Structures are given as C-alpha cells and as structure tokens.
C-alpha cells in the first residue's frame, strides 16, 4: 500500500512532463497475505479427516419362520471362539465322541494356515485366475465374478464361526477377516451347541 501512495506523490512532482500512464510499480507487499494463506492451509490440512472409516459388509441370514432344518455339513471348518482370545477349530461334522478340538491362534501361521490348507481348492483356482488377470487375458469384472463363483462352489470351504459369552468382538472380526484373506466366500456366525461348549470348557480346565 505504502508504495502505491509514494508513486502518486512522485507523479505529482513531475507535472511538467507529459502525463502518461506511468509504469508505476503495482507491487504490493504480499507477504502477510501469503502468511495468512499458508496458515489457513496448514490449519485445514491438519483438521481434515480424509480417511472415511472403512467397513466390512456382512449379510446375516434371514431368520426363518419355521424351525431350522439341520444343515448337512460336508466341507466345513467350525471355529470356536472363547475367553482370553483363545480359538479352537475342527473340521467336518460334529460327532459327539469323536470330534477333537484343536487350538490355534490369530497369527498368520495359526488360523490363516488352517483355512488356506482346507480351502486349497478355491485358492488354487483363484491363483490361476489371478495369473490370467495379470497377463491381461481377463477383465477385472470377469475376474471378480468368477472368483465369487469359485468361492460358492461345493468343493470350496464353508466356515462356521461360533462364540461363547466371553469372546471378544475383535476376535470375531479377525476370523471374518481371515476368511476374506483366504478366499473363503461362505461363512456364517451361528450359535454354539451345548456339546461344543462342553468340549471347549474342557480345554480351559486343562
């Protein structure tokens, strides 16, 4: 501002010269404005929350009106979650005296390895699909569609997640997450049977 005024005074003195659009410097001191701009910029940058929360979509089965029919379990892993972040599993159908629970953990070598092994059918197929996708032989949408189809096939693994009263929500999410990682497309959250609960309690006593 001050510069502009002084320019006008200068032009007043030199009246005897021809008045022409003088090349007065229009430079304003912008520093304070820029300071302010950057201050605001920093403020908004720091307060903005860009990452919208991520979500995991889950569909629960519609509650049937009629009493449920026992469903046949062929290719299924049942995961039992208990107190103190403990996790047990068994494969196949529950047979009262034969079924043995195996304990595992939430690490990559634990439940994930179990699910990967049991779901090798779907995983092998999906790996081949991925190779095709990387070579550009498949469209992205086709890949997604076929992956869902493979996951839905009969030979693909089915995971049942059962919890007792003390299991933590985090553990449930972890197992759901492991299912997603290991390409298990069919999973369900169901109530625990009394027999299973007893078996699990025995493990806790030991």
């Amino acid at each position, binding site marked *: 501002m001050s510069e502009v005024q002084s320019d006008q005074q200068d032009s007043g003195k030199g009246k005897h010269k021809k008045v022409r659009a003088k090349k007065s410097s229009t430079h304003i001191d912008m520093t304070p404005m820029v300071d302010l701009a950057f201050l605001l910029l920093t403020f908004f940058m720091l307060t*903005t929350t860009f990452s919208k*929360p991520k979500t995991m979509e889950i*569909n629960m089965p519609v509650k049937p009106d009629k009493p449920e029919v026992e469903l046949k379990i062929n290719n299924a892993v049942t995961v039992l979650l208990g107190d103190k972040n403990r996790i047990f599993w068994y494969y196949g159908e529950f047979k009262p005296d034969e079924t043995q629970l195996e304990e595992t953990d939430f690490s990559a070598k634990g439940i994930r390895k179990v699910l990967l092994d049991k779901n090798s059918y779907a995983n092998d197929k999906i790996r081949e699909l991925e190779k095709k996708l990387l070579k550009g032989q498949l469209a992205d949408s086709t890949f997604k569609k076929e992956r869902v189809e493979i996951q839905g096939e009969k030979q693909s693994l089915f995971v049942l997640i059962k919890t007792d009263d003390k299991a933590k929500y985090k553990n449930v999410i972890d197992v759901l997450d492991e299912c997603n990682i290991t390409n298990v497309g069919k999973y369900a959250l169901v109530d625990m049977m009394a027999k299973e609960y007893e078996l699990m309690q025995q493990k806790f006593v030991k």
Partner: protein
Amino acid sequence: MTPMVDLAFLLVTFFMLTTKFRPDEPVIVDMPSSISEKILPENVMMITVDSIGRVFYNIEGQETRRGLLTALGKKYNVPFTEEEAHRFALLSTIGLPVLNLKQYLDADEHGRKEMNKLTKGIPIDSLNNQLADWIAFGRIAAAETAAKKNHDKDQLRFAIRGDGGATYTTIKRVVEIFQERKINRFNLITNLEANPNPGPSG
C-alpha cells in the same frame, strides 16, 4: 511468487470446502482392523458399542433427527421443546435412556460430558428394549426426509461400530434387535490393515 500464492489459495479453498468437522464423540472406540477397503456409505444409522458394552446411537440429517426425537417423545411421554429438538438435531452420538434425554439436552456441554461418562447407554435388554424404538423411529424419520427430498436412491444403511474389546454377546444382541426389524445387512466399521497377500485379490 504469484503462482505459489495462487496454488496456496487454491489449496485453501479446496480444504475449506471439503473439510467436515468431526463432531465430538462421547465415547472412545478402538475398532478392530480388517483388510476391507470398502468406504462407509453416506446416510447411515450408526450403533456404537464401547468396550464395556454401552450402546450409543447416531443418525445423520437434522430433519431426520427432529422426526426421531418427536416420535420418541410421543412414545415415552416426554414432551420436548423446540429448543431441545434443535439441540438434538445438532448433536451426534447419543446413548441414554429416553427418560434422561431431556435432562441431557438441557445440560450445558460440560454437563453432557459428565453424563456421557456416567451413562449406561441405550437399554437393549428385552424388557426395556429402547434401542428397537430408536431404530424403528429413526428409520421412519429417515424415510420421511428422503421422501421430501426425493432422494430415493439414498437408502439408509446400518452400521455397527464396535470396540474390539466389547464382548461379542453385546454385538450379537444389537444384531438381533436389527433382525427383529428385518434388517439383515450391516456395515461393521473397522480400521484398515495391510493385506498380507497383496495382489488382484485384494
């Protein structure tokens, strides 16, 4: 310098327009993490469950919230004033029995914080299942708002934001209450973690 200043102002404008200030949340929730990259859709009804199993409720849209409060007031015979409705519309997550709601809305900010610390959340047991009313009335109010604005596409979604330390039983109960209302699809809100086998399958 001019280009730099131009750029700075451009960014300022951008951030000013995109910023949405996060409302003060009454509870701290430590969400479990998953590899899911889906972003939470707009227009959600959010049920928050904290680590000790208290249930909180939140729904977006001022008009919807007013409708919800009116309906709740009618059912529980608590008449709310216009002033209280206005305050309720501007708040976010709330977790109190309806009978304490009036006191909560009349309190100042400090009082509300104190109440949030002491509250036991929205009752969810089957004898006094207030959460079911919150859900039902919230849904009706949201539908009315949508009808007014002709936003049929913006369907109301249901999200559960649970603390990792909450017992699954509480979450299960909330899911049950939803299912009693024939709502079977949920968004479980999680933090993002890296996918251990990156690739197209991500």
